């Protein structure tokens, strides 16, 4: 043992170019996972800066910090960046890193496809931000895309969007879409074909199950988006008329195509977040997850129902009464499996010996916030109320409650939970807690109070507003919250960097956890497991640690 340690420490430090080359050409699922996550963090900073600019502009009426044109670009870039180049790569990164480890595999099923997918996604992000340099083309007609993140026709027509900004938007979504589909294919093949001996589908960790369903949703949801983007390319470059109302085309069909992608996308993002919660909450409650089979079934139900709710984004378009009723009912129906999940997490915590370490804090806040997000979602599912609230700040508050309060909180929880595994170092608990409290305060200041101007009639995407409509104080509070959130993110970044270089060694299993990834070293070696593990229950490490009372006796 000591001989190997010496041998490792005697390896000379390789030059930077060589190490960089290794990262660029890597096909290792762990390195690609880290690349995804780092990439997403960079874009998180960009998207956060854009959000800050939006909020500073709206801090008081008649503010003139940025021009209306720049404001339009800011909310378009913020939305596109956060969904496609923060949330998705972040979750794909974790899935890439964790799925093979958790099922005891050596790597993903198609390592080279994996690398291809990452670089396609990366190319998409570069396309999007290159629009700042190449967007105006010869026209001098504005740089970054300014058509909103769902880019309704006819805003995207050549007439209304001269220059190349919309083209860069389309290309970036097309190439990141190809990457996403590749990753989804990879996750499904890995889950189905690479599980270690003994790991039946019913014994897979919930994280793997949820990512498996997520991958299925990506295949069914992202492909329509790619198809719609292809049509937009035909319209813009070849003079087609898909969305050209002047030639009999339909703007509404773009809405349908976009939301057939857009709503399942929410579940694509939230299922991996659920996955994190489903791993973290049991470990920090010292209990096995409550109702594993029901959790799996609820996930699959969400996957199915999630494909049939898209037009609740379109109640104000003027669909038939029958269509409206269908989408009201399906949207309300999806609250049922989601509610089952929330009760199962609560039941897991019930009577447990809860440890409030940072990952658990984030997950508890997630439970509470996601519940509220779901409740405002049900109010918006009621079509008549939606006619009143649609396109107001109430909607903006609602979906930020889902994406920030639900998904981002789980992502932060996952960062703290798996950071010791990724890096081999322990993060700083005090800084972690500081991050949590700053972010919770900032989140609630911003997004609780954002509901109010929405109810008072403030539409989204306006670059400024008149004083004396009762919106002023709420907008001020909302913007103040941003400062807390930004401070929280800075603490988080500092914690990551500091802990990576100066943190204590974490050891293989700092949380006394139960899934396979904690049985290998931190960070795991390139081959993951020297011996292919074999599994007899849903908590293989519990069985190892407690041979006198293993789980498989009860399952």
């Amino acid at each position, binding site marked *: 043992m000591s001989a190997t340690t010496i041998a490792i420490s005697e390896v000379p430090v390789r030059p930077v170019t060589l190490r960089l080359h290794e990262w660029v050409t890597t096909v290792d699922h762990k390195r690609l996972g880290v690349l995804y996550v780092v990439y997403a963090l960079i874009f998180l900073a960009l998207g956060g800066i854009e959000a800050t600019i939006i909020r500073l502009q709206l801090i008081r009426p008649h503010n003139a910090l940025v021009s209306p044109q720049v404001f339009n670009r800011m909310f378009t870039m913020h939305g596109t960046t956060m969904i496609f180049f923060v949330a998705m790569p972040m979750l794909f990164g974790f899935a890439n890193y964790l799925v093979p480890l958790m099922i005891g595999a050596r790597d993903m099923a198609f390592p080279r496809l994996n690398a291809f997918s990452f670089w396609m996604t990366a190319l998409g992000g570069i396309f999007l931000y290159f629009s700042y340099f190449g967007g105006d083309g010869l026209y001098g007609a504005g740089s970054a895309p300014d058509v909103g993140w769902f880019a309704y026709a006819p805003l995207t027509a050549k007439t209304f969007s001269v220059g190349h900004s919309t083209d860069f938007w389309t290309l970036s979504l097309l190439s990141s879409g190809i990457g996403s*589909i590749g990753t*989804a*294919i990879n996750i*499904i*093949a890995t889950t189905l074909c690479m599980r270690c001996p003994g790991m039946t589908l019913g014994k897979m960790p919930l994280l793997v199950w949820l990512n498996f369903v997520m*991958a299925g949703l990506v*295949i*069914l949801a*992202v*492909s*329509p988006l*790619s*198809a*719609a983007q*292809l*049509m937009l390319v*035909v*319209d813009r470059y*070849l*003079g*087609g*008329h*898909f969305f050209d109302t002047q*030639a*009999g*085309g*339909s703007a509404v*069909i773009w809405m349908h*195509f976009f939301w*057939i992608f857009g709503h399942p996308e929410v579940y694509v993002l939230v299922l991996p977040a659920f996955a994190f919660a489903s791993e973290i909450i049991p470990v920090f409650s010292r209990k096995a997850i409550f109702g594993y089979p029901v959790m799996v079934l609820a996930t699959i139900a969400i996957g199915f129902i999630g494909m049939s709710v898209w037009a609740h984004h379109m109640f104000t378009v003027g669909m038939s009464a029958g269509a409206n009723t269908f989408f009201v009912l399906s949207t309300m129906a999806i609250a049922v499996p989601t509610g089952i999940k929330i009760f199962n997490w609560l039941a897991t915590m019930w009577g447990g010996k809860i440890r409030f370490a940072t990952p658990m804090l984030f997950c508890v806040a997630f439970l509470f916030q996601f519940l509220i997000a779901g409740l405002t979602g049900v109010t918006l599912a009621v079509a008549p109320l939606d006619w009143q609230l649609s396109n107001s700040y109430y909607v903006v508050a609602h979906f930020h409650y889902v994406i920030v309060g639900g998904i981002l909180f789980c992502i932060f929880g996952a960062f703290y939970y798996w950071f010791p595994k990724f890096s081999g170092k322990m993060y700083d608990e005090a800084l972690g807690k500081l991050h949590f409290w700053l972010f919770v305060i900032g989140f609630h200041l911003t997004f609780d109070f954002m509901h109010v101007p929405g109810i008072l009639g403030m539409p989204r995407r306006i670059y400024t507003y008149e004083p004396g409509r009762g919106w002023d104080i709420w907008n001020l509070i909302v913007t103040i919250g941003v400062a807390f959130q930004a401070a929280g993110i800075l603490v988080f970044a500092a914690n990551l960097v500091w802990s990576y270089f100066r943190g204590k060694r974490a050891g293989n299993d700092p949380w006394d956890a139960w899934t396979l990834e904690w049985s290998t070293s931190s960070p795991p070696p390139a081959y993951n497991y020297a011996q292919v593990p074999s599994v007899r229950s849903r908590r293989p490490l519990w069985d190892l640690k407690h041979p006198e009372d293993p789980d498989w006796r009860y399952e």
Partner: protein
Amino acid sequence: MYCLIAAESAIFTIFVVAYLFYIGKSLTGPKPADVLHAPILYTICLLSSSLTINLAVRRLSAGNMAAFGRWWLLTIVLGSVFLFGTAREWAHLIHDEGLTIGTNLFGTTYYSLVGLHAFHVTMGLLALFAVAVFCFTSQLQREHAERVEILSMYWHFVDAVWVIVFTVVYVIGI
């Protein structure tokens, strides 16, 4: 491959839905009934290539490389004939009928849907061609049968899509 096919099916679904939605919505001519003629012969070529590729794969699993090569080449020929048919049809539409992708909604949806399919045929042909090169340089062996079969699944998918495209464009659409 099943996943890829599922993803591709979703893409085709969207294009088919768009085609069906826009039938009869063009503001100007030409209309599909005036200019389209069902390419029955080329359709038979493409569909029978599904049969020949299946026979080829069976020969490969049986280890009969010469027979595999013959059936495989026949598949490539049939696919190319189909592609030639599409090219001729397009040339006719563009030169004689004056229908381009920008003429009207019919042109837009027709060229996109049929073009998307033709693109998939082209990709499939390139992959088939690559296998043919491996076959005739003797790098393809019996143990690769499973991989070749996966490729043949893609080819079957392209054929099956044509059945739908044909129905939508030349039967329902006229």
